[in-house]
């Protein structure tokens, strides 16, 4: 237990200490929120969609959690290069404990980021259907964070260099974001796009957030939660397996 705690704490310390990075990593979602949220607002309203800011705020929260959690996993790349990973891998503790500590740390950081961007959304004028919705939405933030932190750990265990990192960011993380319905409704899409979006893990996270916060569901609470839980278990398992196979 001490091992998991100390590795979790390490991730948290790194986050809290890099204030520049906190601001930088909140800058991007804030830009999406303000530029797109207010920019597309008039068009979206004319199309009968209501307030675009209301619609996309849950998507931006999902995006923040996605980027932050995947990145924390892939940051293992740096620990590999700076050698710290070796220090943990030769210690007399199981790989599973190390993996769980790191992943929970990354997930916690992503949850904090998600909460910060929620506050920014509220300041920008976003209003949830009920204030009680916020704690329920928190549940979805946690689920998204765990699913993608585990995915990040799995990827971080396999990726060896910076090229691999670019590849994952461009061909996996960005598509996951753009195809999740964070920016547009998933209904009435071309058939192929419908299939693809339904295969996107983040779609269920964003739908859950949006459903809870503003009451618009594409799937349902039960389906979102169920799928996220299954994905969390699957990715944690994969992550643990791939992490246990790291050779230096």
């Amino acid at each position, binding site marked *: 237990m001490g091992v998991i705690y100390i590795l979790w704490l*390490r991730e948290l310390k790194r986050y809290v200490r890099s204030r520049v990075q906190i601001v930088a990593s909140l800058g991007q979602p804030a830009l999406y929120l303000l530029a797109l949220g207010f920019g597309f607002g008039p068009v979206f309203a004319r199309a009968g969609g209501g307030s675009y800011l209301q619609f996309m705020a849950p998507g931006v929260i999902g995006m923040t959690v996605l980027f932050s959690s995947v990145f924390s996993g892939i940051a293992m790349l740096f620990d590999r290069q700076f*050698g710290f990973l070796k220090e943990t891998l*030769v210690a007399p503790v199981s790989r599973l404990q190390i993996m769980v500590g790191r992943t929970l740390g990354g997930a916690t950081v992503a949850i904090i980021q998600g909460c910060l961007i929620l506050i920014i959304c509220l300041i920008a004028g976003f209003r949830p259907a009920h204030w009680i919705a916020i704690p329920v939405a928190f549940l979805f933030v946690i689920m998204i964070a765990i699913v993608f932190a585990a995915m990040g750990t799995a990827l971080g265990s396999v990726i060896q260099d910076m090229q691999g990192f670019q590849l994952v960011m461009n061909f996996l993380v960005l598509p996951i974001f753009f195809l999740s319905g964070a920016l547009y409704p998933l209904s009435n899409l071309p058939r192929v796009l419908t299939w693809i979006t339904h295969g996107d893990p983040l779609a269920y996270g964003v739908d859950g957030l949006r459903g809870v916060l503003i009451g618009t569901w594409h799937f349902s609470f039960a389906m979102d939660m169920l799928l996220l839980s299954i994905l969390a278990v699957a990715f944690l398992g994969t992550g643990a397996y791939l992490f246990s196979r790291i050779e230096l």
Partner: protein
Amino acid sequence: MIQVENLTKTFGQFTAVKGISFQVQQGEIFAFLGPNGAGKTTTIKMLTTLLRPTAGTILLDGFNPLVQQKEARQRFGIVFQDPSLDNEQTAYENMVLHGVLYHVPGKIRTQRIEELMKTFELWEKRNDYVKTFSGGMRRRLEIARGFLHTPKILFLDEPTLGLDPQSRNQLWAHVKRINEAENTTVFLTTHYMDEADRVADRIAIIDHGAIVAQGTSAELKAQTETDSLEGAFLALTGTSLREDGADSKDQMRQFARVWRR
């Protein structure tokens, strides 16, 4: 303390280590010398559970690191050729983290961290981030950390690489002091022959994956009829240069340097 029989490691077609055997007694300082690419680091990686041997057996304090991995790991400490500190944490936090990873109980941990950091002259700097440390200070911290869980064996893979003579001397003095005080077995590699000559009780010389000679420094000099360990080393391994190809890791290291500035 360390028993190695017929240890072999092949990577595809290439045999990095060819059936080497040696023994190291408790409390001994054993130097493992060889040109670049001779198989030193591969051997250390196998001894420290980071690589699986292709064939052969290893016993560390009676434990087989393949089967009884945890027991074996608890018994050794290692200072890698590359740094393995967490730059974003303070020196003290690095020590605590290591103590927790190696199950050192809280009270003993606090006491021993203070003791070791004072020995290695780092106590004043304990609350500074590792990223602000000089190369010599990082090395000292890594070695102090390696001793924290009172290992029976300490592996040092080129610990003095890139250090000035002052730091090197001081570092070996500290290692020797703890080796004597705690009877820790030390297994080291280095390219500085004068260091090996001064510090090591016994020396093995490895070339092209095979041990070409082992014994005390005096024995090696007598065997090759040379008057310095460097002379003996060159007599045994020849004077040709070794190719050491740069791999993706080296490129990444460069990239990382740019990133962190």
